[in-house]
């Protein structure tokens, strides 16, 4: 229609407005367009788990092995286009053996929905203009001058001469379109075989229905995982609404599993968050971190211990699902002298293979940020004799130290390395017996005046 009115891409806005006074114009917004395309890409996951964004205006869907869910490729493509049209997106689709052929037919074919039978791409591409080959600008400008305007003419030319004249780029694109060469697509989500999909004849929205769907889709996944003796550590359940929005829930397991009931127990409390809108028509379930189930159970000694491990794993999953990721953890050591860097949060059921140096005193409570204290030291290099912390004066009766902890200078730019970052730690006890871990940062006689900090408390 736009073409019939005399409009084309790249036309000046003023010229276009002169031709069609009632033209709706919008500002050029590349980042907005890209974001919208990515949202569309996410939406397309309802059709196939492998979707790739192509350029500024295209999407690739790898529908290998999923088209039967729509009773054939043609139905699937027609469904996709119809759904896009329902959302006021005009689109064209092509199904072919190769990404290149599909690209060409979607853009230059004469049908809105084209399906190329297996192996038929050479025939289908023959009549298309060479622009359909995704060529670089130089080759695309050169070829028509030699009379090579259609892909069919290029296919008829001797390969060696073409390669000499136009470089390997042309041959690459031609081979990719015809299937001689594999093409790697950057899928937005890695294709996973662990993908389940449930579509509903009528859109659903009641909470009980969502719960039943959760059970059903988990059971379907469990059956497949079971057949391969595998379990997954993360399950992502996505509900696709009629208006194209999608809402995902995820449940993580501390040990791989596939039994539907406990996973459903983790997911169901979150179902209330879902706003079904006008209804949900598709639910998908993706299992991640799939691994063999059997190998972990070989190490287990007796039944009681296995039972205990199961119990603890279930507890960790429940707490993680309720409190959030990273809130249930086991502290693991990191090779660092800096006290706050010597620990990290690991998985709650991780094995601790090494510990910390038992000869170095470390407090039971370590503040994330050392707190400044006003300290009075008799001699510059001595621990303080008294200090004020949180408004209270503490008289130091005994002190132990110093333990000098240098800065990890290799972590920062060279010009910021200085002796001011050296810390001298003292373990001090006040008159009441409370034990503190304090440090002086910097050295006397250095560039800046040293300061005293309180970093932790001993039991």
């Amino acid at each position, binding site marked *: 229609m736009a073409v019939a009115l005399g409009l084309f891409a790249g036309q000046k806005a003023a010229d276009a407005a002169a031709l069609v006074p009632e033209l709706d114009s919008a500002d050029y917004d590349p980042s907005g367009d890209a974001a919208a395309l990515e949202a569309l890409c996410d939406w397309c996951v309802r059709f196939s788990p492998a979707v790739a964004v192509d350029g500024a205006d295209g999407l690739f869907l790898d529908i290998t092995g999923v088209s039967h869910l729509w009773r054939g490729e043609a139905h699937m493509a027609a469904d996709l286009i119809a759904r896009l049209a329902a959302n006021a997106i005009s689109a064209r689709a092509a199904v072919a053996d190769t990404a290149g052929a599909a690209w060409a037919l979607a853009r230059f074919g004469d049908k809105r929905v084209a399906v190329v039978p297996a192996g038929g791409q050479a025939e289908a591409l023959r009549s298309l203009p060479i622009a359909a080959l995704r060529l670089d600008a130089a080759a695309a400008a050169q070829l028509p001058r030699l009379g090579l305007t259609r892909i069919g003419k290029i296919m008829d030319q001797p390969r060696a001469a073409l390669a000499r004249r136009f470089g390997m780029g042309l041959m690459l694109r031609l081979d990719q379109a015809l299937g001689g060469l594999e093409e790697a697509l950057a899928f937005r989500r890695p294709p996973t075989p662990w993908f389940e999909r449930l579509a509903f004849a009528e859109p659903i929205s009641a909470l009980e229905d969502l719960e039943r769907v959760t059970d059903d889709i988990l059971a379907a996944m469990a059956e497949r995982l079971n057949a391969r003796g595998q379990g997954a550590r993360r399950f992502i359940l996505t509900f696709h609404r009629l208006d194209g929005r999608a809402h995902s829930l995820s449940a993580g397991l501390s040990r791989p599993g596939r039994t539907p009931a406990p996973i459903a127990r983790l997911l169901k409390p979150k179902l209330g968050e879902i706003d079904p809108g006008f209804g949900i028509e598709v639910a998908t379930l993706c299992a991640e971190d799939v691994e063999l189930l059997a190998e972990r159970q070989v190490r287990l000694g007796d039944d009681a211990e296995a*039972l*205990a*491990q*199961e*119990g*603890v794993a*279930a*507890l*960790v999953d*429940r*707490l993680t699902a*309720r*409190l959030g990721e990273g*809130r*249930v*953890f*086991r*502290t693991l*050591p990191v090779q660092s002298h800096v*006290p706050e860097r*010597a*620990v990290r949060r690991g998985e*709650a*059921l991780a*094995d*601790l293979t090494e*510990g*910390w140096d*038992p000869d*170095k*005193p*470390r*407090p*039971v*409570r*370590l*503040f*994330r940020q050392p707190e400044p204290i006003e300290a009075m030291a008799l001699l510059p290099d001595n621990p303080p004799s008294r200090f004020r912390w*949180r408004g*209270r004066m503490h*008289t130091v*009766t*005994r*002190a*132990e*130290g110093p333990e000098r902890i240098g800065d990890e200078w290799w972590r920062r730019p060279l010009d910021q390395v200085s002796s001011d970052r050296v810390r001298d730690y003292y*373990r001090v*006890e006040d*008159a*009441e*017996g*409370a*034990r503190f871990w304090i440090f002086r940062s910097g050295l006397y006689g250095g560039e800046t005046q040293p300061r005293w900090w309180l970093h*932790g*408390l*001993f*039991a």
Partner: protein
Amino acid sequence: MSGSRAARLSVLKGQIAALEAGTRTLSPVLPFGDPRIDGCFPHGGLPLGRWHEVAGEGLETETAACAAGFTALMVGALARKGEVVWVLRRDDLHAPGLSNLGFPVDRLIQVCVRDEAEALAALEDALGSVGVVAAVGEVEAPDLRAGRRLQLACERRGATGFIIRRKPFGGPPRGRAEPSGSASATRWRIGAAPTQPTPWGLGPPRWRVALERCRGGRPGEWLLQQREDEDGAHPFAVVPELADHHLAPEERRRA
């Protein structure tokens, strides 16, 4: 008439006794290894499968460092049998410090929660789980209802609970200031005590420990010190008060 009444009463009493024997079997205990402490408890040691309350004074009500150290030593003896869950509202528990006290940190699962209700719920969940031998929770003031729920959770699997009472930093005190958890089996108050100095610095940690309330037992107060040369079965040594008195004047002189 009165005879049959007495007979019925005795039958009922017998039934009640049988019920109580069924639910409350002789509970396992964790002995401290010192008759001066163990004598305070009804069965010669800290009752397991119950929950206990540990509190501090002054600055300790906010930092709870000594209470954490003391609890870690008690729990450490249990941790060989299963996992220990430690529920925190402030993430300042430092595992290397616990490791220094001899606590098996490879058995420790830390849970970081946002508020009191989450802490109690997580604690309850942990105590009722298979494979968890003890759970420690740092909460402000569990009310009676929460205490009963904890007790029921402890009874489900025989896990032992510890509540470290701790106020949020700087916040106003919430609810009643006095300890309220009458459902707890014991209530402890832990304060720091000056250590016995060694040639190279501070001695092993020492606490003024008061057993304020003990269900079916009697209260007591001791000066306890971490026992260093042990395999960890009895982590505490009682410091004779005499030695402490001997220490005190010297301390005054130095201060």
